[in-house]
């Protein structure tokens, strides 16, 4: 073996972390006494830097693309963490970044209804558990991560978050590319994205991509999947399968500030007061806030509602539903329906807010179907009714004049006020009158056994959460609907 190759071998072993004491001494000596060796050593180390930079800036999905010039120097931005930490901490409270000691992987930007932590709490590698509320964290590389309770997690590094249970949404800037969420059944590696991870109590985890691309790697040798905008994937040990995107299942970073402000402004107690008043209304048919221990039967998950620690049913699949039976045995000439909903997506099939089962029963006239159509409009359908000519709807039933919202995944307040005597249905979106639809034929409403989230034909769904469903046997005025919305609004 020549002295030359010995030197390269020593450098190789140094790079591999496998060099012995004797070898290190020899390497130091060679470097100390030979300027040529020093240059070679420096060039070898420089190659390491170059390779790491190059690969950190390489997109997995395009790794074999021939055009390498387009990705030049992506790595140059990597420790933006310094910049981001600085700006972040300025923005959220004036604490100086240099006060963040090493071993701190993230800072709590906003703890909304979380008792275990406060704003600006430093997150180290310990386990954390939150039972209520929403936590917005910023990692020291600038990734925004929102974790919704109940959740248990720990940072293994600033770029690696282990989530045992709970939901998180991450908004990952280029500086934090490759940010990885580890779940009991696999790993999710960011490639510059907005994505969500939901780890259920049984440990199964789903990844949902809102924008960009991630890699989902099931544990135990499952095939790696590249997922793109709108994709969702169930991670199972050794395998996985495609899922439908559930955007409303995750509270996103852009939502947290408004939720936090509403909480600070005392919205939950304001909402509670409004509901208490409503409970004494003699015309109240039902008020479901889903907080009681007695759950309505059905197929659904109970997740966090609009307020930290509150509950709301969540539906995922066609046929998921909650059963209720209210207002049976009489006619309701006037009826007000109202609810807060958070929909995952729009489109087929129709989203069921409330569907009575009796649509095909002998007492068929006036059976109520309240829904969001595939055109995103709110529809109030009473069997036998017929809208007046020129009104918004599907030629039979009346709809809101405009879609309920431009984008899914945020809480919206929907209300319909119906008066069969006046032959009018009024639609309200977020407390505002959206449409008044005249009816050519208007029967009194008929209630009874019904489902939320489905119709008993199993062809409807409600992909998302519903909260504070109100059925009132009278009309509500514009002001009353507005007040209901104002009191219950989880955003400020």
């Amino acid at each position: 073996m020549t002295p030359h190759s010995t030197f390269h071998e020593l450098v190789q072993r140094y790079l591999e972390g496998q060099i012995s004491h004797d070898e290190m001494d020899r390497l130091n000596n060679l470097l100390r006494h030979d300027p040529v060796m020093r240059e070679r050593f420096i060039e070898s180390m420089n190659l390491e830097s170059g390779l790491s930079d190059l690969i950190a800036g390489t997109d997995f999905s395009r790794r074999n693309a021939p055009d390498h010039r387009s990705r030049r120097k992506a790595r140059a931005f990597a420790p933006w963490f310094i910049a981001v930490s600085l700006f972040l901490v300025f923005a959220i409270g004036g604490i100086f970044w240099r006060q963040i000691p090493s071993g701190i992987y993230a800072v709590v930007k906003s703890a909304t209804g979380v008792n275990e932590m406060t704003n600006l709490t430093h997150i180290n590698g310990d386990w954390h558990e939150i039972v209520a509320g929403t936590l917005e964290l910023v990692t020291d590389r600038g990734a925004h991560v929102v974790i919704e309770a109940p959740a248990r997690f720990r940072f293994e590094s600033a770029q690696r978050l282990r989530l045992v249970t709970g939901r998180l949404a991450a908004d990952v800037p280029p500086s934090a590319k490759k940010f990885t969420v580890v779940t009991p059944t696999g790993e999710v590696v960011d490639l510059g994205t907005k994505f969500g991870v939901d780890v259920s109590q049984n440990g199964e985890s789903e990844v949902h991509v809102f924008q960009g691309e991630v890699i989902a790697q099931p544990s135990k040798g499952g095939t790696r999947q590249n997922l793109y905008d709108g994709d969702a994937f169930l991670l199972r040990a050794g395998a996985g399968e495609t899922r439908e995107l559930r955007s409303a299942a995750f509270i996103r970073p852009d939502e947290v500030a408004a939720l936090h402000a509403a909480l600070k402004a005392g919205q939950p107690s304001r909402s509670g007061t409004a509901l208490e008043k409503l409970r004494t209304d003699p015309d109240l048919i039902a008020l479901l806030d889903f907080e009681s221990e007695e759950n309505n039967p059905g197929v659904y998950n109970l997740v966090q509602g609009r307020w930290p620690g509150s509950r709301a049913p969540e539906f995922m699949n066609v046929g998921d539903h909650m059963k209720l039976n209210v207002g049976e045995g009489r006619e309701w000439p006037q009826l007000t329906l109202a609810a807060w909903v958070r929909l995952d997506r729009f489109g087929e099939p129709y989203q069921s807010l409330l569907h009575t089962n009796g649509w095909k029963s002998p007492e068929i006239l006036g059976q109520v179907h309240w829904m969001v159509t595939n055109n995103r409009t709110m529809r109030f359908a009473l069997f036998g009714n017929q809208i007046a000519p020129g009104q918004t709807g599907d030629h039979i039933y009346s709809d809101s004049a405009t879609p309920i919202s431009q984008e899914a995944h945020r809480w919206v307040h929907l209300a319909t006020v119906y008066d069969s005597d006046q032959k009018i249905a009024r639609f309200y979106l977020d407390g505002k009158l959206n449409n008044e639809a005249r009816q050519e034929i208007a029967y009194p409403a008929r209630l009874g056994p019904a489902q939320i989230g489905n119709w008993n034909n199993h062809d409807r769904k409600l992909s998302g959460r519903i909260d504070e469903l109100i059925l009132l046997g009278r009309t509500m005025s514009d002001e009353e609907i507005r007040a209901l919305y104002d009191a219950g609004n989880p955003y400020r």
Partner: protein
Amino acid sequence: MSVETMNRHEQFLRLFMANETTIRAFVRNLVPSRADADDVLQEVAIVLWNKFDEFRFDGDFRIWAYGIAKFKVLSWIRDQKRDRLMLANDVVEMIATDSHRMDNRLQRQRELLEFCFHKVSPRDRELLLQAYQPHSIIQDVALSSGRTVAGFYQWLYRMRQLLQECVHRELAREASL
């Protein structure tokens, strides 16, 4: 925080971000691993900001940063456990001086590496990508490549040589133009 401090801070960020890759590479020349370089670089960034008032506006930020980085590496080496095998202090000094002197050449070599990297066969490139991922475990990468760990290190050694030769060749070609 005063407006003046904020402006100063913004100025610092601009300079730091513009030079960060080079400063990192400089630190990397002096410490055993990439992770070590990351640790030291964080400390360096903090010192740079703390001492930023001492930095002259017309000065060379990179040279100033190199000086601070070298001292930070030396103090970092002092704090490491004795069983960690690292460059001797006097060697660190020499390498730092040489790295500084070779600055332009090293930077060009890193740029040319991108060109050379794409001349590697897709299969080898794939393996290099895996091996140089921030959290990659060489044993796992070796296993997935169907090699023994020793065999994989040998392969890595050859790849590094191949890339280094390519970089030298390209550099020589540029010099002859």
